[in-house]
């Protein structure tokens, strides 16, 4: 028996040693052979490593069609010179690290990208810089792709900007620690399942910081979305987790911190909404749980249209918002409980931390604004304050169903 086991070990170790000896490292250097990544890939075999030395290399759609580890040393530049894409990965088990990919072509018919990953799985893209590309990283028809610690900067050109990191019809995508700016949409997902977006920052993009459609079972955690021209928009998706994100300063008319359209069974928790024109806008959203978020200094904290049902708003903090909740009709079957509202003026006789009088977050003036937008001119006037006070004590116009029966006396620590 022992002998048999030794023989097995011996053969195994022989294979491992032999395998290692097979995998070679090819160094790309300008001036020597191979001169470019393309030549190196042509020479390489599956499992090889290519190291690209510092320098500027023209790369007109170099296709990585073998399982390779491609490393950039001292950040070599791959430049498409506006003629084509920079790099396309079509093979599985590929790792790309340490490059600066720049100047992809822009086009109306094709989506040229800095780095395209197409029909591959197990691809890792780490620590690259992408500059001035039409699309930054474009993942399609792929599985188990991880995009980590890249810096993606677009061309900031309104007419010719693509998305920073785009994933289409893929699953198990992990996007972690990236910075995306000056693209059309920072991060865009369409038909993407079971993916995680974590610790990214998406700022100053021309449209949405994050945008996804028809992408179920994804999670978005610890991201920062700031100063995007239209905020964040998420649509037609189910079972989404959005937690610990920051939605800051998405400012201007028809700009939303978070726009939700037909989002079902999702959780929105522990997020911070600060200084947005509208922090959350919800349309046709059902069975969502919105809890432990902080809404401060927004124009409008929540705008919930009356086609939303069964949403739970609990344990949130509302501070310094011009309007806390607005709606266009009556909100049935949406529940508000245990939130802290800084506009609450009730009392707490038994000192249990919960106000004894229900709070109605929809103010009379918000209802008036709903009907007559021009009445914005009366904002913060004495009469409006007066009417709001009266309405709070004797509600007549504001929807009766929207109320928090257990408003907190003190803000939650979030």
């Amino acid at each position, binding site marked *: 028996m022992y002998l048999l086991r030794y023989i097995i070990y011996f053969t195994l170790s022989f294979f491992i040693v032999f395998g290692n000896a097979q995998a070679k490292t090819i160094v790309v250097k300008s001036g020597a052979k191979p001169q470019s990544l393309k030549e190196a890939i042509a020479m390489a075999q599956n499992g090889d490593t290519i190291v690209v030395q510092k320098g500027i290399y023209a790369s007109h759609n170099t296709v990585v069609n073998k399982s390779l580890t491609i490393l950039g040393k001292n950040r070599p530049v791959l430049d498409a010179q506006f003629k084509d894409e920079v790099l396309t990965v079509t093979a599985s088990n590929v790792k790309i690290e340490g490059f600066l990919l720049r100047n992809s072509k822009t086009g109306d018919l094709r989506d040229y990208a800095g780095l395209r990953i197409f029909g591959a799985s197990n691809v890792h893209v780490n620590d690259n810089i992408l500059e001035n590309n039409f699309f930054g990283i474009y993942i399609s028809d792929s599985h188990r792709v991880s995009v980590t610690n890249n810096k993606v900067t677009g061309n900031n050109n309104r007419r010719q900007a693509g998305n920073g990191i785009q994933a289409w019809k893929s699953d198990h995508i992990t996007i972690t620690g990236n910075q995306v700016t000056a693209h059309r949409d920072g991060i865009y997902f369409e038909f993407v399942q079971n993916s995680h977006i974590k610790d990214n920052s998406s700022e100053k993009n021309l449209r949405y910081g994050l945008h996804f459609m028809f992408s179920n079972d994804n999670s978005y955690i610890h991201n920062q979305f700031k100063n995007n021209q239209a905020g964040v928009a998420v649509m037609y998706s189910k079972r989404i987790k959005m937690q610990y994100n920051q939605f800051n300063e998405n*400012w201007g*008319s*028809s700009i939303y911190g978070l726009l939700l359209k037909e989002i079902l069974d999702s959780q929105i928790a522990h997020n911070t909404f600060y*200084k*947005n*024109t*509208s922090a959350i806008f919800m349309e046709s959203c059902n069975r969502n749980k919105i809890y432990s978020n902080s809404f401060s*200094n*927004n*124009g*409008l904290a929540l705008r919930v249209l009356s086609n939303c049902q069964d949403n739970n708003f609990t344990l949130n903090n509302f501070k*310094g918002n*011009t*309007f806390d909740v607005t709606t266009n009709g009556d909100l049935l079957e949406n529940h508000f409980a245990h939130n802290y509202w800084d506009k609450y003026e009730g009392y707490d006789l038994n000192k249990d931390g919960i106000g004894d009088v229900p709070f109605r977050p929809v103010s009379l003036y918000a209802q*008036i604004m709903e*009907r*007559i*937008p*021009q*009445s*914005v*001119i*009366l*904002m*913060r*006037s*004495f*009469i*409006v*304050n*007066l009417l709001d006070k009266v309405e709070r004590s004797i509600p007549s116009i504001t929807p009766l169903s929207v109320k928090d029966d257990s408003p907190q006396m003190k803000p939650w620590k979030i």
Partner: protein
Amino acid sequence: MFKIAKYIALDIIKSKVVMAYTLLLMAICISVFLTDADVTKGLVSITTIMLIIVPLVSVVYATTYYFNAAEFTELLVSQPISRKNILLGKYIGISSSILSAFLIGVGVPVLLFAFGSTGIILILTGSLLTLCFISLAFLASVAMRDKAKGIGLALMIWFYCSIIFDGLVLVFLYALSDYPLEKVLIAITAFNPIDLARILVLLQLDIAALMGYTGALFQDFFGSGFGIVFSFGLLMVWFVVPLIISLRVFRKKDL
């Protein structure tokens, strides 16, 4: 004229009412800034309070003082001083003391805690509002013979500007909501100095809520350089025109 102004100003300072007003404003401003970490929010609160207190105190105090000093006015009229100079002297005396109360009470804390364009606009509008309502107080005073009636009228003016006018605007909006009223509304605000002041400060503060088409339109107008000049100009009109009218009335008034 300036001699009268100086005399009146000294008299007012001696009376301690203005001192109390200064301290009140200062207490409000400092407590607002100290309790609220967010400066912008503090400025919003101060604006709301300022828009109620400043016109009220200015209009009531100026009227009361005018009537209390009626005998002094009669004495002055018997002297070889033109009536225009007498009234202007009174105006300068009263307005300078109330204005300085405002500047110390609101201006100093705002400059200390929230120095910036918003703070400066707040101080400017507040000062102009003070002057406007003293002018209106003078108009009320010269229009009425009786002290009670004069103060009543002054209070009515304040009541009209801070509550009734906006209420009417609201009713007007409800009644004619089918029509495009944006431009009309801009014109309507010109008829109320408090609204002018409110919109001027508001546009510096929470633009967030000025959403949609209407908000954008108002911001385009009032937020632009022309809009600011327009609103300040109208506030100046509200301060100068009542004063001129009261000068005319006073010149021919049988005391």
